[in-house]
């Protein structure tokens, strides 16, 4: 499940359509854009969190979720997988 950044919602409807076709497991709801920082409300329901340098990574630490760090950032310190 992808959740948008509160200040930089990068996914247009065309991109979402492309991702849904290309990656069958991709999950996204445009309603998430109406809730500021929606990611933090989803953490409790997921198995792992993938983040670049978002504060969601810190919140995933609080929830003791597996963390995948995409790139190098402060959250790489705690990531189960970094790349």
């Amino acid at each position, binding site marked *: 499940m992808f959740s948008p950044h509160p200040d930089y919602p990068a996914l247009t409807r065309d991109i979402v359509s492309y991702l849904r076709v290309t990656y069958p497991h991709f999950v996204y709801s445009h*309603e998430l854009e*109406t*809730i*500021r920082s929606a990611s933090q*409300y989803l953490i409790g329901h997921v*198995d*792992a969190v*993938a983040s670049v340098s978002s504060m969601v990574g*810190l919140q995933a*630490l*609080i929830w*003791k979720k*597996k963390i*995948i760090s*995409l790139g190098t950032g*402060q959250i790489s*310190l*705690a990531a*189960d*997988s970094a*790349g």
Partner: protein
Amino acid sequence: MTGIEELLRAAPIDRDNVLLWLPTRYYIPESFLCRPGWLSRFLDKTIELHRLRGRYDTLYEPIDAAHTVIDKVIRSAIPQIPVANSQGEAASLAAELDSLREDAAASSALAHSAALQQGQLQEQIGALSSELESYRTGVLSSLFHWARGWANTRLPLGSRRRNVARALANALVVLVSRGPGGLLRALRRRSPNQDPLGESREVGS
């Protein structure tokens, strides 16, 4: 993103140390960046580590007492999940949910308001402390350097008046910046060849 299945099956690793380290040392609150005393020490240490090619993992010192930082994080958290601004059925459900929450919210509103006011008061105390620190490190420092320059040019080198003036000025700075306890400690540490605040006398220099 490869090997996710194995990652999910792997035993969890306790990372509470990182969870404590990040907010208490790395995520520096904006208010601290406006404190000249703290920022000056941070920049000095950064330059010194770079000069000595030191390890930057020693750069980050505790921002404040851990419980103080954690309390601040908790106070700034959003206590309730916001309702989406969607239309149609979702909006009507949201309105119904709002009305159900209204009674419960009313009872917690006073407590929330009190907590908010307490937070604002603590912010004001922080701002006042910052201003006081700015005064100590800014105005007082400038005044002290001016007075010392004046004494250096007007009073003969090695004279008793000059030594007494320097000692009094240093004592005043220590008293204001470190408090009476700091002044007493400085006086106890003094050596026979030093003035009361640890600066070498200029006799014979």
